[in-house]
């Protein structure tokens, strides 16, 4: 057996199931039940990474979510790479491939480590800000170099082969944490019939009971855990979620749980299984039974591999059968710490000394240690550790009882492991997520959950109740409290009996003094992951960063993936000491979601690829695909952009499509236009209030173009509305504006004019809209209708209910091209039929399908605006030269009227929409180009407006453009210049935006 630190017996591992894993390219063995960290320790792997700033060697410190150093890169293939996985939370599986993420060129020989060694003092807090910000132009280069050297893990370059799920739940009681308190609460709630969920981040329930030698009712605690889990599993009203981290506690008792379903099985999830699942839970009550983290002490060279938190040592021994060294020195400020030395001793390895910072220790655990003959040194501390890639010895000295100075001679001891504890820190993170500030408690030397508005209960370690009996009874009480709040009956629960230990008070100590001042002592790390030292925090305070939030940002304390779980309280204590304040006076940073990092896969769930966003297709979409259309996204709609033939370029296709419409006939799929059905006896009045123009006299059978403005007078949408009946209208909107317009109508109706009887409904998807346009459109359509569609019988701006290709249709004689046009609206599912019939009879007219780009060119030739392209929320109808569309005399002060009458809106020199004709007819001005009047002006040149629409017009043989020009409507014939990024300048003449058929004769035949 090569696992030199593995015990022959004990622990919750299965020694009959050997698993092979690799770390930095070398293969090792572990057992089923191991975490990656326990297997690494079993194999005597001391080095798991290099530190972020100083590149110092680092080893495993903790055994759970709080681990700052063993943050590894996982993945056997490029596609399955996962960065920043805590080895302490990753279950071992056969074939697991892991690597350290920092250390360059390798973790063993590291270049930055030399910098750290030689120039430690050259990298104070704020080092990166102070050093790399200048010159700013080089920042990108610095960043690449720093990232390579510092190493933060890397994301995969190939697509993740796994899938991820989301699931919603509602429950009565959600219990977070399945340790003694959580299990007692869950059992209580479950027995009353409440809908219960219990989630725990570990692979099995039990929490601290999995790694303790304590007994319940005289039997191993794990037996009680097994019986509770068995009972809970049998309830239909209980959902048990192991391997599930409650990563966020949000408003109104909304909780997110990150379940790792298959991360423990293999590199890739088994077929048809989701790798991870995000549970989104709305809980009536939440019980936080999240326990506590052991807090290490801050002493010289406390980051040398072999330095660990005390409770982690017990966990590795008791749960995994791994003793992570041979010779232990334990430093503690409290009774609980003794347990690590007791467990170490029992595992048969040497405890060199227990160093207790207190002058007396007579609690049960201290007495037990004394009885076993373990050397206890009182009133002293480990002030410094020796060693490079592993602890080799320690310096122990007596300290003053205020913890501020060394008071006696240093004694050297040999050791390869230093376990330290400054007491427990309640895991209050989730209680902070909803904005509740934690409260310092001197008695437990830690923060407790603060006041909350959530329906939240807490039990056990999170309340500073660390004794097993207390945790159990608090769990039971929390369960009962939830039941009574829910109005459910109370239940009976006989709690198992735990031994009660006699406790001495803990000492409030965080930062161990050294014989040298902190700034000259060996580095005393507070936050391992971000290389924040006690000296660094002192320096930050001396430089004037007094608020703990500023200290945090300046030093980066707590910014790592571990969010300062181990370091933050020590950091606050160091700051408090230098600022001569108490910890509560210094204040605390609060924790935000997520508790531990989650994958992007879990966030995205199934919302990726095809399912990322809904797509909308018209009924003729398949025809467009067959015809080789190129598509454009308009909102969620897929619209044909143009229809290239053979090897045709886009411009060639557009030229052909444009000529076809003007010379014969073309067809556009206009189904995506927003359509709102408006009914009610006040529908007409309502239209008059929301449109700028007049609607009072629009007769049944007629259509009218309308402009819609905001209360500020600025145009936001436009479209044609048809009068279907005296109390019935069909409004069309821009494709992208449909939803917004409907809500606009609703908000005015519901909040301002509820007395109007009018109803709105979206019918966009109910209709297929086929626009047949061009001089031959009437000839073509007349072959398919049961009606006389001559100009006399069916004039411009009329609509008719007729039959097209045997299908009932509303046909609108409106035109967005300036040509004779018919917009055929049929029930959506008849769309394809009518479309194909039109092509059957249209062949002799060379009926040409065209897309949105040709539509844009054709309307621009006519000077028709597109709301959202030629408007941007800052232009009113007069700016657009559309004063004809504003009926100022309407009796009701329509939306936009007052707004466009404001002083600034009346200025003569506002930017106004005009046509632009380039001096060189072949030149097309880029859309967005900014115009100037004086091309010789100094930069920055005074800009007078931008180009909104610009195209090559094959019909006209020259380019056409529309754009805003200051005072443009009174500058017809004058020049405006467009200086481009390449240094060239395009000169254009200001003209009418109507380039073709200014009298509108072509549409009116």
């Amino acid at each position: 057996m090569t696992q030199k630190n593995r015990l022959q017996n004990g622990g919750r591992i299965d020694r009959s199931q050997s698993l092979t894993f690799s770390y930095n390219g070398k293969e090792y063995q572990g057992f089923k039940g191991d975490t990656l960290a326990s297997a690494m320790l079993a194999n005597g792997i001391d080095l798991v990474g290099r530190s972020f700033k100083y590149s110092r060697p680092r080893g495993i410190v903790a055994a759970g979510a709080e681990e700052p150093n063993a943050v590894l890169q996982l993945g056997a293939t490029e596609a399955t790479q996962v960065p920043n996985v805590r080895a302490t939370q990753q279950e071992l599986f056969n074939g697991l491939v892991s690597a350290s993420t920092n250390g360059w060129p390798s973790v063993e020989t590291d270049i930055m480590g030399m910098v750290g060694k030689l120039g430690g003092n050259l990298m104070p807090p704020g080092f990166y800000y102070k050093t790399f910000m200048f010159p700013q132009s080089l920042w990108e280069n610095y960043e690449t170099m720093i990232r390579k050297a510092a190493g933060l893990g890397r994301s995969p370059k190939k697509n993740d082969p796994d899938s991820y799920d989301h699931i919603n739940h509602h429950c009565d009681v959600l219990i977070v944490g399945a340790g003694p308190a959580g299990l007692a609460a869950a059992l209580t709630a479950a027995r009353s019939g409440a809908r219960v969920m219990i989630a725990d981040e570990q692979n099995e329930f039990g929490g601290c009971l999995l790694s303790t030698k304590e007994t319940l009712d005289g039997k191993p605690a794990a037996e009680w855990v097994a019986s509770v889990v068995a009972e809970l599993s049998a309830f239909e009203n209980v959902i048990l979620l192991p391997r599930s981290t409650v990563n966020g506690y949000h408003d109104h008792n909304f909780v997110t749980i990150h379940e790792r379903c298959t991360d423990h099985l293999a590199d890739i999830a088994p077929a048809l299984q989701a790798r991870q699942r995000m549970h989104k839970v709305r809980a009536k009550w939440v019980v936080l039974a999240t326990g506590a983290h052991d807090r290490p002490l801050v002493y010289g060279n406390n980051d040398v591999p072999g330095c660990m938190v005390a409770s982690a040592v017990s966990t590795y021994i008791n749960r995994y059968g791994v003793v992570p060294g041979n010779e232990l020195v334990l430093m503690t400020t409290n009774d609980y710490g003794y347990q690590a030395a007791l467990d170490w001793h029992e595992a048969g390895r040497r405890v060199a000394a227990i160093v207790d910072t207190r002058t007396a220790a007579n609690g049960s655990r201290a007495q037990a240690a004394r009885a076993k003959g373990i050397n206890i040194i009182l009133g002293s501390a480990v002030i410094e550790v020796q060693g490079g890639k592993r602890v080799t010895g320690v310096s122990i000295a007596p300290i003053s009882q205020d913890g501020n100075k060394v008071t006696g001679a240093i004694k050297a001891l040999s050791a390869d492991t230093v376990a330290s504890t400054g007491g427990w820190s309640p895991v209050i993170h989730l209680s902070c997520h909803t904005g509740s500030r934690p409260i310092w408690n001197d008695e437990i030397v830690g923060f407790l959950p603060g006041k909350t508005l959530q329906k939240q209960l807490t039990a056990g370690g999170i309340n500073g109740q660390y004794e097993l009996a207390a945790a159990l009874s608090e769990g039971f009480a929390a369960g009962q409290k939830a039941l009574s709040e829910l109005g459910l009956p109370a239940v009976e629960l006989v709690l198992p009996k735990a031994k009660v230990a006699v406790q001495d008070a803990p000492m409030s100590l965080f930062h161990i003094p050294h014989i040298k001042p902190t700034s000259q002592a060996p580095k005393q790390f507070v936050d391992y992951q971000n290389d924040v030292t006690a000296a660094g925090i002192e320096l930050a305070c001396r430089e004037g960063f007094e608020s703990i939030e500023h200290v945090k940002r300046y030093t980066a304390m707590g910014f790592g993936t571990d969010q300062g779980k181990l370091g933050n309280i020590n950091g606050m204590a160091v700051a408090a000491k230098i600022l001569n304040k108490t910890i509560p006076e210094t204040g605390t940073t609060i924790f935000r979601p997520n508790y531990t990092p989650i994958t992007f896969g879990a966030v995205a769930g199934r919302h990726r690829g095809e399912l990322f966003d809904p797509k909308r297709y018209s009924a003729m979409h398949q025809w467009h695909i067959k015809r080789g259309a190129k598509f454009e996204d308009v909102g969620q709609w897929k619209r044909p952009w143009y229809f290239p033939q053979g090897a045709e370029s886009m411009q060639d296709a557009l030229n052909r499509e444009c000529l076809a419409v003007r010379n014969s006939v073309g067809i556009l799929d206009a189904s995506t236009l927003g359509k709102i059905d408006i009914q009610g006896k006040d529908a007409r009045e309502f239209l008059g209030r929301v449109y700028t123009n007049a609607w009072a006299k629009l007769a049944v059978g007629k259509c009218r173009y309308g402009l819609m403005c905001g209360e500020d007078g600025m145009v936001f949408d436009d479209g044609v509305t048809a009068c279907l009946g005296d109390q019935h209208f069909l409004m069309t909107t821009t494709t992208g504006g449909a939803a917004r317009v409907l809500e606009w109508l609703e908000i005015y109706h519901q909040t301002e004019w509820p007395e109007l009887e009018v109803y709105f409904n979206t019918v966009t998807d109910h209709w297929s809209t086929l626009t047949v346009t061009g001089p031959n459109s009437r000839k073509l359509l007349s072959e398919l209708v049961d009606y006389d569609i001559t100009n006399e019988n069916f004039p411009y701006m009329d609509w008719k209910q007729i039959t097209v290709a045997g299908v009932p249709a509303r046909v609108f004689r409106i035109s967005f091209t300036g040509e004779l046009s018919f917009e055929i609206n049929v029930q959506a599912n008849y769309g394809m039929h009518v479309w194909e019939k039109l092509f059957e009879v249209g062949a002799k007219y060379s009926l040409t399908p065209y897309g949105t780009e040709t539509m844009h060119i054709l309307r621009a030739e006519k000077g028709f605006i597109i709301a959202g392209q030629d408007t941007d929320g800052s232009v009113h109808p007069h700016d657009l030269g559309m004063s004809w569309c504003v009926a100022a005399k309407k009796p009701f002060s329509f939306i936009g009227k007052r707004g466009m009458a404001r002083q600034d809106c009346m200025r003569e020199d506002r930017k106004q929409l005009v046509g632009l004709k380039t001096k060189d007819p072949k030149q097309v001005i880029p859309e967005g180009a900014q115009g100037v009047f004086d091309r010789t002006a100094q930069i920055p040149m005074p800009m007078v407006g931008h180009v909104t629409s610009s195209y090559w017009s094959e019909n006209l043989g020259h380019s056409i453009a529309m754009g805003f020009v200051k005072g443009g409507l009174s500058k017809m014939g004058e020049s405006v210049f467009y200086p481009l990024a390449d240094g060239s300048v395009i000169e254009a003449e200001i003209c009418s935006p109507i380039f073709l058929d200014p009298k509108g004769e072509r549409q009116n035949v």
Partner: protein
Amino acid sequence: MYHIYCPHCAEYREEEEFHAAGQAHLPRPLDPDSCTDEEWGTYLFFRKNPRGIHHELWVHAAGCRKFFNMTRDTQTYEIKEVYKIGEKPSIVAES
């Protein structure tokens, strides 16, 4: 993620179904044309940004499509009450 009671549907629904539509109780002046530029500008642009009790307009956009008012604490994110358009809030900030 809020849990919102829609007074029209008479049910609690998830925040995803709703969106806020700005400050509540901002009636459109009955005669806009008689407003000065300043009065109209105040109606158009000036909004409260209180720390604490705030009255907002919300719409059950992916539900009944109806608007309603909400009294909300902007600091704690508590929803104090919801009430229909035209009704008055029963909870108001202490002045």
